[in-house]
């Protein structure tokens, strides 16, 4: 599992733990370094006092090469209190030969200083580093033996620093334990605090996944940042819902707008047969005794009334609110033609209407949005084609797809119109919403819109695929 996949409420405490461990490591290193420096200073001071005092006391004896005097002084110094740290002290002449040592077995009189003692550190450059590696000592430190202003020999001591090493190891152990406990405590407390602080975020995350508002009981204080964030989210959700409601109302209105745009055509469509129908009634009244004339007039009345019925039905169908969920059928395209054809007739336009046969499978698509898409595009095409132009609709039904092509021979769509139809940018105030409604409906059906211009025609193609339609 990738660390980035971990929840924020876990990642931040883990990050805090990591930082604590790092801080603990650095702090421990600093403490040990400071302890080491203190110990080195302490040791340098002790060794300096020891070697300095011995050098002062031994100067004349070394100058005389008085074996006993040197030994006796070293022996007494070694058994003194400070001598407990001094495991061995050796005094050599300027040639490196032993005059006497506190332990003559280690460094016999008149022999050369053993190599390990000859490699003793100088007091000034005393360094305790690495003594742990030798198992805690001893530390060998040396200093020249100056008497009456000249070097008469050298004094080398082995210091027992096991207690200092043990002290450092104990400090390290305590630091490790202390830091571990502190890290765990702080990490635990930090984790708890973080989880508590980030709980609103988890709540927000859940609410966002469910697209539901955060309940008032889960809202933090108004003054906190997260409190403001969650309230902002709730307001945003309300705004989104309001927008959706507005859009729904706009869509509803668009249906009436479409009909509004058709109203004059529809009025003509109703008015035109009315003259014939009234003539028929006059004829019946004038020739009630002529059955053939009455029958013809009745037939005329019947055809006119049926036409009016179809127009009324199509109009009603377009505006019915209970059509949601009704499947698409070939009859829907017939209704659309009935509604749209008078508009083209009014404008003196040529209409090329090619729709699927009755038996084609269209039922996988909902009727209402498809009707709205086709009607809006056709009305738009008719408006673009203008007086005496040409518009056309071609609907091709395949088992898994439906392609709607609307064309006109108008001057082409404006950039603003294309932006409304093909883009998601916010609508500029003042414009219509018909094309944006088409785009929203097509997107909701999982379809795509294509625009092309060829041979003086503007062609808009809507491709609706079966897999794209939400269940």
């Amino acid at each position: 599992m990738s660390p980035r996949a971990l929840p924020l409420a876990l990642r931040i405490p883990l990050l805090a733990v990591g930082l604590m461990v790092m801080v603990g490591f650095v702090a421990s290193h600093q403490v040990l370094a400071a302890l080491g420096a203190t110990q080195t200073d302490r040791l340098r001071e002790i060794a300096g006092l020891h070697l300095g005092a011995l050098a002062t006391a031994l100067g004349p004896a070394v100058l005389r090469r008085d074996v006993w005097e040197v030994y006796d002084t070293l022996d007494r110094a070694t058994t003194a209190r400070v001598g407990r740290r001094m495991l061995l002290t050796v005094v050599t002449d300027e040639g490196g030969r032993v005059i006497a040592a506190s332990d003559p077995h280690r460094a016999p009189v008149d022999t050369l200083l053993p190599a390990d003692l000859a490699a003793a550190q100088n007091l000034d450059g005393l360094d305790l580093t690495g003594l742990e590696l030798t198992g805690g000592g001893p530390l060998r430190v040396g200093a020249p033996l100056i008497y009456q202003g000249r070097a008469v020999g050298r004094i080398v001591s082995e210091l027992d620093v096991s207690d200092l090493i043990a002290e450092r190891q104990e400090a390290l152990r305590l630091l490790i334990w202390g830091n571990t406990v502190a890290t765990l405590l702080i990490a635990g407390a930090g984790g708890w605090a973080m989880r508590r602080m980030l709980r609103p975020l988890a709540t927000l995350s859940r609410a966002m996944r469910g697209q539901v508002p955060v309940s008032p009981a889960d809202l933090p204080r108004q003054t906190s940042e997260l409190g403001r964030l969650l309230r902002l989210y709730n307001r945003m959700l309300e705004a989104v819902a309001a927008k959706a409601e507005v859009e729904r109302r706009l869509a509803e209105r668009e249906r009436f707008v479409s009909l509004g745009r058709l109203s004059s055509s529809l009025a003509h469509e109703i008015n035109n047969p009315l003259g014939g129908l009234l003539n028929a009634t006059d004829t019946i009244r004038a020739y009630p005794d002529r059955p053939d004339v009455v029958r013809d007039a009745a037939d005329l009345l019947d055809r006119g009334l049926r036409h009016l019925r179809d127009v009324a039905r199509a109009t009603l169908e377009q505006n019915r609110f209970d059509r949601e969920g009704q499947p698409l059928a070939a009859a829907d395209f017939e209704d659309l033609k009935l509604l749209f054809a008078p508009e083209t007739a009014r404008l003196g336009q040529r209409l090329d209407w090619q729709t699927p046969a009755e038996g084609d499978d269209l039922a996988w698509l909902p009727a209402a949005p498809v009707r709205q898409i086709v009607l809006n595009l056709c009305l738009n095409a008719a408006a673009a084609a203008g007086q005496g132009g040409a518009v056309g609709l071609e609907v091709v039904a395949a088992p898994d797809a439906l392609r709607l092509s609307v064309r006109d021979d108008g001057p082409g769509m404006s950039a603003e119109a294309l932006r409304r139809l093909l883009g998601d940018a916010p609508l500029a105030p003042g414009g219509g919403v018909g094309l944006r409604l088409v785009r929203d409906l097509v997107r909701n059906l999982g379809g795509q819109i294509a625009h092309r211009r060829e041979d003086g025609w503007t062609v808009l193609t809507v491709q609706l695929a079966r897999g794209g339609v939400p269940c």
Partner: protein
Amino acid sequence: MPRVTRRGLIGGAAAFCATQGRADATLRFALTPVILDNDADAAETLRAALAAGSGHAIELVRRRSYAEITALLLEGSVEAAWLCGYPYLQHRAELALLGVPVWRGRPRYQSYLIATAGDPARSLADLRGGIHAFSDPDSNSGWLVTASDLARIGETPDRFFARSFFTWGHRNVVRAVAAGLARSGSVDGYVWEALRQVEPDLTEATRVVARSEWLGFPPLVARRDRMTSAPVQSLQRSALQMAKTIPGRAALGALQLDGIIAAEPALYDGILARMHDLGQP
């Protein structure tokens, strides 16, 4: 003639009284490392015993070497001293015997030639080329015996040993050998035996390679010309009667001695013979 003032007279009188008072009350007795000179309790019991026996306050005087004590004695800075037989003989014209301690029933002791405990040497000859610790150049057991033994085989300490040094005390000789500072050492047999009682760890680190013949025990001596003086007489009386007094017996017990008796110079003929071996009168 210098002018005499009242302040001068008072000061001079006070100084005289003080000098007379110290001369009457305190006797100065010098100690050399012929005994366990590091044992403060033993020295204190000896001082107390001499004070009780003589009726005088006793001030113990110590110096690093026999030579310094001998010099103090000869110049009269101390009334008497516990000295070694060798410096006594060196100055036998000026010094006289006050008494000689009795150790293990006789007024004699031996010089021990010691080596470190693990050393395989069986005689002085086996110690050639080693480092040797002497006690004091004026000590019989701590120098003269070994030097004269070497003289008898035609050697000197400087040639025979790779290095030799003086430790200015018999106990120090034992310390030097025990610690390995020196391979061998010349030590007072009485001191070594006394140490074996009080510091067995020290003597166990050494081994006696050879013992000398029995020689006169280090004597208590005074300047010959002061032998009849009251302070010296009181000191001699106190020493000779030490075994008969409680403080005296305590001192003798602390020093692991039986008593102190009067002695004749002939007791030190053995030491004298060794001096002659070195060409000394």
